[in-house]
């Protein structure tokens, strides 16, 4: 299995399109084992789509996604489900099961994949909830939680099976400064304590740069720049400067309109 020990995930010449619209074209990236990689990019560049491609939920139009030496395209559905026990994804919405309590949500992967006795499941779940500071909420339903709390419960659930690789989809979106700092610390601590490989997709630049080892900036379906946070901060590309530091660039459109405003409004 581990033919490529240095990289947990690789995308080779990845091309993905929906109908006629290309989301990624000729995308190449490698995620090093044990690193935190931040994937940044403006809204609508396909960051969440990329995560879905990385965990095999979407299939690339052409090209390959290699996870720990296995091409996802070669795996059967059963093998893919088996591989996914080693991966985890923290959804932007949390994606908690609304008909289960917080406790049962965190216990869900343990109950499905292990035959641990009930008292052990209980202890593991309470430890996981304690690690995200929400042991008191074990008996609440997800609807009773705030957005930040729901995401922390989802983090506890995604770590329940001790994955090797975890992906965070916009973990900081819509969080107040306190929740954001709590989440930031949790992500860094979890990465450190469990020796994970982490991928963080975000457009909260400051937070992402503060914990990442490697930064990739996506734009127009390609990796526009990659490097350490320090290298990114010193990058001279006008788009990178605009995206990372909000520096205005004359004539650089921020939206993706094909038709000019003059053509669309005045029909000129």
């Amino acid at each position: 299995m581990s033919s490529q020990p240095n990289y947990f995930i690789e995308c080779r010449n990845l091309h993905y399109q929906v109908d006629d619209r290309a989301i990624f074209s000729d995308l190449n990236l490698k995620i090093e084992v044990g690193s935190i990689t931040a994937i940044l990019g403006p809204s609508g560049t396909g960051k969440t789509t990329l995560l879905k491609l990385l965990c095999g939920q979407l299939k690339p139009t052409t090209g390959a996604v290699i996870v720990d030496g296995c091409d996802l395209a070669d795996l059967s559905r059963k093998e893919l489900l088996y591989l996914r026990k080693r991966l985890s994804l923290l959804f932007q919405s949390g994606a908690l099961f609304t008909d289960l309590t917080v406790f049962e949500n965190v216990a869900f992967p343990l109950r499905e994949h292990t035959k641990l006795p009930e008292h052990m499941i209980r202890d593991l779940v309470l430890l996981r909830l304690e690690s995200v500071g929400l042991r008191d909420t074990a008996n609440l339903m997800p609807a009773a939680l705030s957005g930040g709390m729901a995401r922390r419960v989802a983090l506890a659930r995604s770590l329940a099976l001790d994955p090797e690789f975890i992906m965070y989809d916009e973990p900081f979106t819509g969080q107040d400064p306190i929740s954001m700092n709590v989440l930031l610390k949790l992500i860094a601590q979890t990465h450190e304590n469990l020796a994970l490989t982490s991928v963080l997709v975000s457009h909260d630049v400051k937070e992402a740069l503060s914990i990442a080892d490697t930064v990739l900036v996506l734009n127009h379906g390609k990796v526009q720049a990659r490097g350490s946070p320090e290298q990114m901060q010193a990058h001279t590309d006008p788009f990178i400067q605009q995206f990372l530091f909000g520096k205005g660039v004359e004539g650089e459109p921020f939206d993706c309109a094909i038709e000019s405003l003059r053509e669309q409004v005045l029909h000129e």
Partner: protein
Amino acid sequence: MSNYVAALGAKYIRVFQLIGRSGLFLISILNWGSGFKGPFSRLVKQVYHLGVLSLPIILVAGTFVGMVLALQGYYILSNYGSQEAVGQMVALSLLREFGPVVSALLFVGRAGSALTAEIGLMKTTEQLSAMEIMGVDPFQRIFSPRLWAGVVSLPLLTVLFSLLGIYGGAFVAVNMLGIYEGSYWSNMQQSVLFYDDVLKGVIKGVVFAFVCTWIALFHGWQAKPTSEGVSRATTATVVQGSLAVLGLDFILTAVMLGGF
């Protein structure tokens, strides 16, 4: 002209693709899963949601349908002086047709729409995706118990519908219209056959249950992850489920009566 032909062709290709997808979907969800305890407890939970919670509407509707049948039957049969046969008429109408068909229509409206909305919302809120990412197959974990729960629940509801209908009919015929109680029940006993009437009605219930639950689950799974998408899927379930029940009823009746 060629554009029109192309558009028509594309439309039919989409319809056949949809039929093919629904067939593959059905094959994927038939698998009960490994072991017994886990899948069985999920089945029991779904039988409660689909069957037990549908009981009030089925029992009330069954009673009223039986009462109306007795009233109508009495006035028609009394023209021929054979109003004593009202029990036989109520029982046969309920066991052969009204029981399976009306129960299935009510089942699609109550349980089918709830299933589609539930699955559609699970998809919208990424709960199905979260399950897949955890390495848990939603086909086995979510869809399969619901399909089998539907197949278990609706035939039982059908039997209860007919039973309450027969008692409702007895109430109207005996207590309100003055038919002799002995002739209501003995006529029924003489004419109703277990295999031809009761069992065939239950078989219809099984077929309707299978098709209605399949339609409901498929539309939930196919729903666009938006509020409009879920709303459209729920409507499609009720419309297609109801039409499927009525169409299949004709085919099953024809086959059972040896019409083909």
